[in-house]
Structures are given as structure tokens and as C-alpha cells.
């Protein structure tokens, strides 16, 4: 591993730039891309995928998508992953979206992810264990995306995992 940074969607490319500089590498040195496809923030997921598509087109390299739930799980062996889906819901393995209270839990199950932090009280009351907020297992790390990436191909074929449909309902 030459380097890793934790980024937010809005600063993604700044961090990519800094990461490569730190590693003494150039964009042309990239041979393939691994990109998180969610579930999570719709806009954040799209920023990652759009950036990956732009990079793949510019550099003529392939890409592979990795579920954010899988990347989290890879960094937290034995734990279940819970991502905040907003609107008082969570994304869990499946992938599925459900209310935190509807998550079936065995006593002592370890839960990681921003959804586990957000609903800590409720989940702990139901018997789960949630590591401290600053435990690094709560964050999906790019090194796990890179390690899990399989089946590299054209970037435009990498699909986002939205799980939830848009709210709008057709008129007719």
C-alpha cells in the first residue's frame, strides 16, 4: 500500500491529488480504480462514481465497484455493518433498508458503521455492542475497497447501490 486517506465526497479529488503526491505517483501511473458504490448518501455515492468515470475515461483504465457494506465488514471481522440511511432508517447487509428497531440482533453482536453510532442507544438497549465513536472500524477504508475489488471493466458499467427508490411517484 502506497498510501490511504479518508475523504468526504466534496473533497474527494483534492484528497486523490494529495494522496498521489505523497506517494510520489502521477495519475498516469494508475492502472485500475476501485470505487465505493454505496449504500449511503446518494449524492456522495454519485460524486465517487462520477469521479471514477471521469478518471477512467481520461486515463483509459478499468474500474470495479465495491459495496460500502462489504468494505466496512472487511475492516471489522465478526461485526455486522450498519450505515445511516437518514429518515430514521439504516442500510444493512443484503443490502436492505429498515428501521433500526427492526434489526434482528443476537445478544453481544458487534455493530459498526455511522448508522451504529447514530442509533447507539437504541441498538445497545436491544443487546448489541457498539464500539466507541472514534473506533476506526466505523469508517469504510479505501484499502479494503482496493483489496475487495474484482471483475474490473468499463467504469460506466459500475452501478451505484441506492437500495432505496426516489420518493417521487408518477402522476399517472
Amino acid at each position: 500500500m502506497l498510501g490511504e486517506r479518508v475523504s468526504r465526497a466534496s473533497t474527494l479529488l483534492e484528497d486523490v491529488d494529495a494522496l498521489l503526491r505523497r506517494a510520489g505517483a502521477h495519475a498516469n501511473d494508475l492502472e485500475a480504480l476501485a470505487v465505493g458504490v454505496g449504500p449511503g448518501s446518494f449524492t456522495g455515492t454519485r460524486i465517487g462514481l462520477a469521479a471514477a468515470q471521469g478518471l477512467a475515461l481520461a486515463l483509459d483504465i478499468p474500474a470495479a465497484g465495491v459495496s460500502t457494506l462489504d468494505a466496512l465488514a472487511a475492516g471489522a471481522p465478526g461485526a455486522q455493518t450498519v450505515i445511516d440511511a437518514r429518515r430514521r432508517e439504516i442500510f444493512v447487509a443484503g443490502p436492505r433498508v429498515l428501521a433500526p428497531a427492526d434489526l434482528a440482533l443476537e445478544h453481544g453482536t458487534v455493530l459498526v458503521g455511522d448508522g451504529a453510532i447514530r442509533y447507539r442507544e437504541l441498538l445497545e438497549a436491544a443487546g448489541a455492542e457498539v464500539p466507541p465513536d472514534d473506533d476506526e472500524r466505523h469508517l469504510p477504508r479505501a484499502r479494503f475497497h482496493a483489496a475487495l475489488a474484482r471483475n474490473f471493466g468499463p467504469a460506466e458499467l459500475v452501478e451505484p447501490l441506492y437500495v432505496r427508490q426516489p420518493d417521487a411517484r408518477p402522476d399517472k
Partner: protein
Amino acid sequence: MILGIETSCDETAAALVTLDGEIKANVVSSQADLHARYGGVVPEVASRRHLELVMPVLREALDEAGATLDEVERVAVTQGPGLVGALLVGLSTAKALAWARRLPLVPVDHLHGHVASLYLEPDPVEPPFICLLASGGHTLLLDVRAYGGFDVLGTTLDDAAGEAFDKGARLLGLGYPGGAAIDRLARGGDATAFSFPVARLDGLDFSFSGVKTSLLYAIRDLGDRLEACRSDLAASYQRAIVRALVQGALAAAEQAGRDTIAVVGGVAANSELRAALPGARFAPLALCTDNAAMIASAGRYSRPLPYPRYLDLDAYASRV
């Protein structure tokens, strides 16, 4: 060449334009059919579709121009105003593309893009002029003093002109987008059959919410007789909107002392508006609705941000 990318609303677009303003490729993939089911643009639906379309549209633009990315010297992309989630798809793609190829990038204001649709070959308009920008999202009177910018003289206080067409079309049982549908239906109608007054305001601002309400009441009052009057209603409604736009444009030209009036944006395709301003310059029909050629064109007149000084750019929903 300049590569232009536009994803501010419901058109995914890419274009290649030379530094001299010649269009080499102009690809627009409209999502209108997708949004017609909802009666208007749904931001989350639009953003999802942009992500699916942006790569195919970019590849098609390169094919159409017979060009490769090696010939692209600059990337121009819409930064706002528009739907932020939609804008971020184009902006993120553009930043990544420019960064990976060490190119400069020009963030373009969508409204400046519409004005710059007038600067493309083969028949460019030269500033200064008064520009009426009328679309589904905007209705503006602009004093365009120079290529790089403009002063806003007037704007709509409520609905945009194109929005008034869309809402009117919905009341008349026509599809989305409504402008073209009303234009067609109005051709067989009597524009003097109904009176739909548009509010007169001090200065050069517009208001279109009242005319829409007048149409609603007229439709209610007609009851069973509505079917026989639909083309008259469309013609009268269109006449009211067009008259307000024409009066505004003429007053702006007089106030600013400009000889030339130019019209851009989706409503610039309206046949009655084109007929009502015979001396005006209109954007070519293909460049009235949102497209990326106009964004690339605007990219000729703004200073590009050098590599990699654009990586922190964010999209904006509206002009401050």
C-alpha cells in the same frame, strides 16, 4: 478544443467547440420523457439519470467530432445555478477528467452559458446587446456589455416564463415539457378569445403566477365547453406571456440604449415570440434548450483555472 459538460437540470450534455467558436460536436440526451411521468423534473431521478448518461454522452461527443481527448485543451463545466445533485455529477466528472489529463478547467455559470449560445459560429452576435433569457428556470433581462459578463436589469418575481408554459400545459391536459405543446395547440386558436392579463410591475421585473391563475379560473368557468376552447385558451395564454416578454425586452433596450435585442433559453424556440420580435437575434433552435456547446462557448470568455486549482470547486443552486 474545449470540452463542455452540462448537467444542471434534466439534459445530460457534452460538446466539443474550437477556440474560435466552431461546434465540432453537440450531444444532448434529454430526460424529458422520464420526467413527463412525474409532471416535472424530480431532482433525485434526474441525478441518477445523469450518472447513467454522462459517459455515453461524452463518448458520443468525441465520436461525433472524430476527436480524442488528446485534442481537448480545456474543460468547461456548469457549476450552477441548477439542481445541486445533478450539477455535481457533471462537475465531478469534469474535475476528474481535467485533473487526470492536467488540463485547465473553467467553471461556467449556466446563465452565462445561455448568453454564450449567441457567440458560436456561423453567425455570432457581438456585444453590447440586451438579452432576454427565458427558460423553465429563469426569466431575465440582461445588459450584455461584453463577452465575459452582464448586468441583470430585471428578473421574474415568481414563476419563470417556461414554468408558466409548463403549468399552463398541465392545466390544459398537455404533456411535459409544456412550451412546445402549447405552441402547437395555439396555432389553431384565436389569441383574442380570452383575456389573460399579466401583472405590470415597476421597472423591468416579471410576474407570471397571476396569468396561470387566470387560466385556471377560465378552465373552471368553461366546464363542459372546455374541449371546444382548448386551442383558443392556449393561444390567448401564450399571447399574454409573449406580450409581457416582448414589452420587457423593448423597455430594457430603450432604458440601456441598446440597438440589439437577443433572445436565448428554451422559450426562445417559441414561434409566437420569434414572430413578435422580428428585429431580434434568436439563439439557433438547437441551442435554445440546455446544451453543452453553450457551456463550452462561455468557457472561451472566462479565465480558466489552471491544473489543479479547481479540485475544491463546489456546485451552487442559485446566484447569490
